[in-house]
């Protein structure tokens, strides 16, 4: 199941920040993780992922470095302090949202967002 574009616009960045909270990752790694961990629900085309990463970097939520030590140069992304703060804020928002949606019967009593990455 693919998420509607408008929903994805809010969920995608939070999901990426959450994935980076456990350590730095490169682009394809993020693609794979998103696909695998969300059962394909939050899988996004790479044409969307990379611009999203650049936008998060422009906002100072993530930072990047180029690692040329491997078989090919790769850009690794990591969470900044500002990104951590934003993730914490977004997590609370999502919890409240899922709880509210659960309260009206749209979702279960409590979603499993956060803490499972």
């Amino acid at each position, binding site marked *: 199941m693919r998420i509607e574009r408008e929903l994805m616009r809010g969920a995608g960045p939070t999901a990426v920040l959450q994935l980076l909270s456990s350590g730095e990752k490169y682009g394809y790694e993020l693609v794979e993780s998103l696909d695998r961990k969300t059962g394909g629900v939050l899988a996004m085309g*790479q*044409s969307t992922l*990379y611009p999203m990463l650049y936008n998060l970097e422009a906002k100072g939520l993530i930072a990047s470095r180029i690692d040329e030590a491997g078989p090919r140069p790769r850009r690794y992304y990591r969470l900044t302090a500002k990104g951590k703060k934003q993730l914490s804020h977004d997590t609370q928002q999502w919890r409240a949202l899922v709880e509210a949606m659960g309260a009206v019967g749209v979702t279960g009593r409590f979603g499993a967002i956060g803490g499972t990455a």
Partner: protein
Amino acid sequence: MKWHQTIAASGLPDAAQQIIVQVVKSTRLWRSERADVAMELIAHFADGLDAGHSIDQLVNDFGDPRKAATLIRRAKKRNRSWLWQSMRRFGQFVGVVMVIYIGMWAWLMMSSPKPSVDYVAKLNTAADAVRQADRAWPIYRKAWIEGKIWDLKFDEVMNADNQLVQPGKTGWEKVAGFLAEHAVLVEAARRGGAMPGLGLNAGFSRDYTGDDRLALYGPDTDQSERQARKGSPSSLLDGAVIGMLLPNLGHMRNVSQLLKLDMQLAATQGDGERIVADYRALLGLARQAREVPTLVNQLVAIGIANQADLSLVGLLDRNVTALTAEQLAELAHLTARVSALCQIDLDGEQAFLDDFIQRLYSDDGHGDGHVTYQGVRMFAGGDIPGASDKGVMASAGLPLAYLMMASRREMQEQADHLYDMSQKYADQPLWKQLREEPQAVRTVREMKASFASRTKFWMLMILMPGLERAGVVGQQAVAVNEALQVAIGLELYRREHGRYPQTLEELAPRYVPTMPIDYSTGKPLLYVLRDRGSEAAAEKEAKPVLYGRGLDGDDDGGVWDAKEKVRWPNVPKQGDWVLWPVPVTNDER
């Protein structure tokens, strides 16, 4: 290595390379940014292949390359430096401003000023109304040509202070010959001064006949005619009040100097009849000078009338025996006309600004409008023959002028306001004018202090004449004149009673119609009989002194302070304002 070389050297399948090239190329980013994106996408596809995915699947999962390029370009630009972002925003701002500016320029260029009021014709209403038979101008014109007025120079009858010589002083012996040489001008002034009007339009050189021009400019100095030939007929300044010529005024002033000299000469020759004739001619000249109601005309008229009075003031003190009682009575009658000649009316002067406004702005038919290209060009001097064309400057600056300058209605209202204030000030009694700062001056100062209002009304700042002294000049002339009327009354009284009166009240109403006032304070004019020790024994009786209290408001016994720096007959700051006789200290300067 360039980004496309990097892609080619990546070893990726062609399908992957093609999609990377397409995306990177379509981003139209800086070279370093494209290399960065290329490196990342190469890694992406290589990692995908390493993970066991097929190239078809990876290409399919990648999505739309054009959409990717657009999003990447947008996101990458957000990562550019603060300086670049600022410059970009500034560039966008400038672009928007330019578009608005050009739009505004196009809109403004569609309008042009359409002067609808012929202010020059309005100013000439009185001159036009004079019947041909009542006009002094034909008399003056003939005499000025015959007497070559353009060659009239007073050098030989001037003293070291550049003043006309006084009887008995060095150089006086040349006066009779000088006046004989210019008798035609003096005689014409007496005849012409008696005419009801001048009948000469203020206007432009091209409007004058050949004889008019010869009389006004002389045979070799017709600069105005040359200017008129050069001027473009489409020029906005064509027919404008600002270009209006008043060449007769200078000549009328010169003729008045001749009449003044002749009055003095007549006094030394005991020719009272000529004194009266010359004085009458001077008042006629003053009256005719006011026919066109600009401030310059009024000030010249006041100057001529005041000089006529001052000549009589001196003459009554030194050569009063030249005048019979009948002639004195006639002079008393004539002097009563001076007050009307010394009034200030700024309506005519305002035509100058009103006319400029109608040439600077468009007209929406309801009293409003905006600045125009032609108007700004004219204001910048581009319409002046021979001046560099300011068209480009006027055109480029037009929207700026529109944004910063007052609208036509605002400009007109402010001009009206300033002129109203100036007129009210000029109508106030002299003693108030001397002690109060004119409201118009205060308003202009406040306008100058603020950049916004200074810019908004810069046309007024530049073109508005200083009007605050006009009323003072006029009323000082009236004060001298009223003192002169009293002096004549005193002489007539003395001739009838063998002595001067003890108080001025004894003069009214037979010798003066009303009791004179001291224009420096608003109180009654002061009068004292004083023994002038230097007089011959036969005339050693006490002589009258007429005076005001001056700016300090104190009665100092009728003494003009020898240290006073203000030149008589201006109101002194200290000491008394002696109006008759002429203070001795002034003669000695």
